């Protein structure tokens, strides 16, 4: 073991002997990225854009949000990461839509796209539309909405709850200040007193004991569960039409998880808005969601009502997910897991993304990417397994 070996790092099989990007390729990627990013950033920074440019019509007035062929890409140094690669689904008014999928499948980015909060400048919405029906009856196409107009929607009509309650609150401001801020920002004629009243009332309604005391505390004085309750309260303050909850319980202990879920269920009954619930936990979906959207590698591979998905999954991935859930009924000792890995998000193949992991792959699967096949007014799956659509297409078919 010479001195040279002493300092060399261990070689990893399968990584060190794969191909490296050449310098020319890297430079080409950089140049392309800069050009593209500059274009999009300039578009977004325009001021005084006339309304006609970003107003549009909803396809179905019963929906609050319609995602239509959304493409959100990240222009990184190693290539273009197609995080969201053609996503289409609806969020009806008053319903809870659960978006399910494993890490990296693009579910968070989808919701961030809706809020125009995708990490700029590398992340950009490059194609598609997100039609949002606002409280004033107008329908906005989010990717086209300029930044200054978007501010009026965020927090007021669309609000978001994030995954990490420990770091999502500003540590130097009191809870009360951070909550009042939302009211004072969005509500006309709000005074600090009114804001304080409403904040304390909201804290109470999310189950926080001694809300007037908590109002004066700093975030670091609260536990994780309490902070998440505060986040939920903040999200509800302006009676939003849509709440996005991005893995709200993942970072909490199991017992607290149950409490927060209970709270969210309560909230769902109380408000007349919609909820977009993003999670990888099927249990949460089963409890909360009305409709389910299953994402894989940036695309939707199955969508339907919660009953349809749980009782009659069509896509092999969904089937695999259902089987992977540990259940007391299984007689086997082994846990089922779907073999293989998610494909590289930079150079996606042309065929079905799930091919290398699918138990039920057929020859036709090596061909084109499967189109969405309709099984019921609400149930769609992108798989060749079940042949042609057995359901007659009608006007209300989505995709």
């Amino acid at each position, binding site marked *: 073991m010479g001195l040279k070996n002493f300092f060399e790092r261990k070689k990893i099989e399968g990584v060190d002997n794969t191909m490296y990007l050449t310098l020319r390729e890297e430079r080409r990627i950089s140049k392309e990225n800069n050009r593209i990013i500059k274009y999009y950033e300039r578009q977004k920074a325009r001021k005084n854009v006339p309304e006609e440019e970003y107003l549009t019509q909803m396809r179905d007035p019963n929906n609050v949000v319609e995602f239509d062929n959304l493409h959100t890409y990240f222009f990184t140094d190693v290539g273009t990461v197609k995080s969201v690669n053609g996503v289409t689904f609806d969020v009806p008014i008053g319903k809870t839509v659960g978006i399910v999928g494993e890490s990296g499948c693009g579910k968070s980015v989808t919701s961030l796209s809706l*809020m125009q*909060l995708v990490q700029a400048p590398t992340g950009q919405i490059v194609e598609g539309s997100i039609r949002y029906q606002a409280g004033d009856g107008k329908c906005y196409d989010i990717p086209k909405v300029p*930044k*200054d107009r978007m*501010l*009026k*929607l*965020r*927090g*007021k009509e669309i*609000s*978001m709850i*994030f995954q*990490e309650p420990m*770091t*999502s*609150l*500003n*540590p*130097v*401001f009191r809870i009360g200040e951070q909550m009042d*801020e*939302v009211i004072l*920002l*969005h509500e006309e004629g709000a005074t600090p007193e009114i804001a304080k009243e409403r904040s304390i009332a909201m804290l109470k309604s999310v189950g926080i004991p001694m809300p007037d005391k908590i109002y004066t505390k*700093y975030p*670091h004085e609260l536990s994780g569960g309490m902070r998440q309750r505060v*986040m939920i309260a*903040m999200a509800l303050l302006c009676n939003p039409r849509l709440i996005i909850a991005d893995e709200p319980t993942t970072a909490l202990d199991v017992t607290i998880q149950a409490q927060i879920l209970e709270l969210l269920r309560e909230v769902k009954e109380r408000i007349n808005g919609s909820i977009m619930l993003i999670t990888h936990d099927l249990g949460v979906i089963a409890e909360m969601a009305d409709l389910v959207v299953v994402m894989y590698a940036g695309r939707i591979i199955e969508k339907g009502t919660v009953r349809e998905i749980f009782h009659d999954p069509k896509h092999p991935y969904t089937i695999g997910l259902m089987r992977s859930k540990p259940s007391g009924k299984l007689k086997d000792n082994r846990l089922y897991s779907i073999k293989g890995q998610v494909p590289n998000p930079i150079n996606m193949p042309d065929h079905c993304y799930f091919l290398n992991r699918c138990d039920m792959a057929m020859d036709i699967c090596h061909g084109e990417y499967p189109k969405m096949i309709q099984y019921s007014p609400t149930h769609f799956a992108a798989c060749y397994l079940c042949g042609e659509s057995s359901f007659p297409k009608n006007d209300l078919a989505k995709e």
Partner: protein
Amino acid sequence: MLKYILKRLGLAFIILIGASILIYMLSMLMPADFIDTQTAAALQSGAMTMDDVMRLKELYGLADKSFGGIMKSYFSWLKSALSGDLGFSFLYQKPVTKVLSEYIWLSFMIAFISYILEIAIGIPMGIKASVNQYSAYDYTVSVFAMMGTALPSFFLSALLLNVFAIKLRIFPLQGLTTATKIFDKNAYIQIFLDKAWHLVLPITVLTLLNAGYIMKFTRTNMLEVLNSDYIRTARAKGLSEKAVTYKHAFRNTMIPLVTTLSGMIPGLFGGAMITETVFAIPGIGYMALRATLQGDIPFIMGYNMFLAVLTVLGMLISDLMYMVVDPRVKLS
């Protein structure tokens, strides 16, 4: 909290004792007959007696060179230092503490004005650079900051003197006052303006050299804050970028900023040795440099002890400020 303060004070004391030992070792650099040569003139004129000279030698460990003797000398020096007597300066023929008290105020004034200007320039530039990362503004400002640390103070001073004092004849070359002008004893405004005019260039030099550091510091901290989760929450609430930057982000950056900046305040009393000398401004730095180059050991030791105290004081203040500005630090 009281316990915490006491603990920190105790620690500071230990550090200062250690520093004093190191500084006292400077006296061992003196050659054997140094005190004799330095005090020869005073001895002859009758200002000092042989006893005084002997006492001095004892004080600085030159009388008894054994280890025990040096220890004794150190402790007697330390004792007098703790009671406020920092020794008697050979060069200035005055107690060191008197020299300090006479000259630190001018240095402090120059340093303080620069300090304010640095903050006024550095912080806004730092914020703007962090918000527009990788832009042309960011690059220019970063380069400017780095040039500030790369320029030797004497070089910048000489350049400014060449351009503004000699070629353009706007500012005077050296000194605090204009020697050729005689002012009426009561013409305070005129005297003040004359002095201020002389101080413009030195203050400019100090400001230019240090503003860059504050700007870079602000920028780095702002960048870190802007990437946090709570900023994303603030944006999700619908706050404008301006509110996000100046209200949410900056308030968090203020924590390291205030602690660092307040820690710099004691240091403002220390004087800028090189700059004051080049411009011949009679501040404590100027006096100290002269004393150093001419081997005025008592003054050097006293002055360095003074600076060490300032440094430790700065660290203490900086720590204490944490408790004031950061709500996460418990005050229990």
